[in-house]
């Protein structure tokens, strides 16, 4: 029982990370319908940029984060500006966007691997400080992850529901064409959406890197888990993406508990396929099948 609760707690912390990745993915996917595989590359770029500032150049921790995240935002916006917007002008299909995004992923990840090598890097060497709560042990990074998630999630909800920008983002989700008719600069808005997504990927990857370290290839399973979270939570529904992240986190803990860690990705995708077949609109949205929601 003790072990079960411990694993569930780990699952919730993992869920926080997946929820952050999923929210970042959702910013792009919900509004543009681009299957943003490059999100995984931004995830990797985030933690390696942080590593460069904090471990290599020995910049203070908070400053490193404050430099890394804006750079990531710029890269995220640049990807849309340089690749996806030109494709859009030629009315390319979403599959072309997906494949181009895959191309971006391959380029960025291999650039990073070329610079830093394929081996695992550690940000904080040594043993982390732990806290006990009635027999449940959490590391300081795990606690930090939970706190950061709560703050960021609250921030996203405020942004989406209380600000003008959030209203525009939700409007773009519903009908980008109508939004541009109303005189909103949707191109600029897309750059913001891509940048926000990149920042969220960076936050999640820096937290992961602090906890367990990283190698250049962690991005692919990160973006896949994020995408699955968005779909099972319900495309178009930002809160759903977070919920999907927690479901995947808990599911993976259960799988690790019952079998071995090598099945965890297969479990996530089995869940996805079950959802695609029986509830393709996701847990929380209702009505249309997600693939039929028009862009």
């Amino acid at each position, binding site marked *: 029982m003790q072990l079960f609760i411990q694993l569930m707690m780990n699952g919730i912390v993992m869920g926080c990370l997946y929820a952050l990745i999923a929210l970042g993915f959702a910013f792009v996917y919900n509004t543009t319908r681009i299957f943003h595989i490059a999100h995984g590359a931004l995830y990797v770029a985030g933690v390696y940029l942080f590593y460069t500032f904090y471990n290599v150049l020995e910049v203070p921790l908070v400053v490193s984060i404050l430099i890394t995240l804006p750079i990531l935002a710029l890269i995220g916006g640049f990807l849309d500006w340089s*690749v996806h917007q030109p494709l859009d002008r030629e009315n390319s*299909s979403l599959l072309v966007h997906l494949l181009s995004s895959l191309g971006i992923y391959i380029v960025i990840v291999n650039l990073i691997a070329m610079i830093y090598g394929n081996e695992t890097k550690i940000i904080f060497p040594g043993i982390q400080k732990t806290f006990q709560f009635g027999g449940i042990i959490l590391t300081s990074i795990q606690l930090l992850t939970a706190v950061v998630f709560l703050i960021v999630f609250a921030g996203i909800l405020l942004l989406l529901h209380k600000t003008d920008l959030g209203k525009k983002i939700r409007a773009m989700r519903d009908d980008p064409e109508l939004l541009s008719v109303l005189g909103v600069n949707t191109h600029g808005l897309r750059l913001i959406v891509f940048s926000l997504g990149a920042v969220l990927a960076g936050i999640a990857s820096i937290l992961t890197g602090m906890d367990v370290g990283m190698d250049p290839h962690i991005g692919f399973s990160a973006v896949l888990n994020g995408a699955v979270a968005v779909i099972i939570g319900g495309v178009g529904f930002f809160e759903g993406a977070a919920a999907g992240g927690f479901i995947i986190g808990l599911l993976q803990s259960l799988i690790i508990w019952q079998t071995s860690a090598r099945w965890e990705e297969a479990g996530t995708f089995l869940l996805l396929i079950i959802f695609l077949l029986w509830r393709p609109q996701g847990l929380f949205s209702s009505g249309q099948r997600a693939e039929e929601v028009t862009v």
Partner: protein
Amino acid sequence: MNYLFHILVMINIYIILALSLNLLVGYTGLLSLCHAALYGIGAYITTLLLIHTGLGFLPSLLMAMVGTALISLIVSIPSTRLYGDYFVLATLGFQIIIFAVLYNWISVTRGPYGIPGIPRPAIFGLIFNSVPAYFLFSGILAGLCAWLLYLIKTSPFGRALKTIREDETAAAAFGKNIPRLKNTAFAISAGFAAVSGALFAGYMQYIDPTSFTVMESVLILSILIIGGTGNLKGPVIGAVVMLLLPEILRFLGMPDSIAANMRQIIYGLVLIILLRYKQEGLAGVYRFQ
């Protein structure tokens, strides 16, 4: 000299993979990301039959083709109900699940330890032991596959697939059974992927699951897209270009550790650029619209 023939053998193997995937991507319009898994299943079935039953190479190959085609139905029957990126994601999911099975089902596949000691193919007493002989053998099989796929492409069945690609609703209106056509195309494609698997197993004489990862599926798909889809020429040119490229880097004197990444970066850039400026690839006919 063996080095040159080694590359040619690998090109033959990838030509069959790209041609068989072309049946899905180029003719039917289904962007599948689990081709490496099917390739792997073909390799494993051939290997297990060769090692445990004492069957010859050709019977093992035929049984692997049928077996892989049947297993592919597990992937295609749920996936072909989906469209667009959902289809891609579902096939990607099966790729990851099949890889996990190959990796974890240790009693059958020996998991990460792999299966060594696969005998070289022998047909009618001829053993293809040297690399040049294997090139000849794989070349004959690749030619045979290309010919069969050409027959399929020009058959009424092939034309029906093209109709699905161009306009699925119209095809349905003509009374075509869309799911059955898609699943059949998937099974045929998987059967041909198994030929590559068998050739790979017989050539390397050792297989483990790491040859059949998601990234391998991505590579096969990039070969096809860079070469071009919708005809026979595109996949062949794609395989030749994509497999010769890293060798050119080697000749330029790039250290191996960087060359592997450099190769991937070039693949990625070529993919992005072609999708932007020349969607039909180097020699294909079909644009993704």
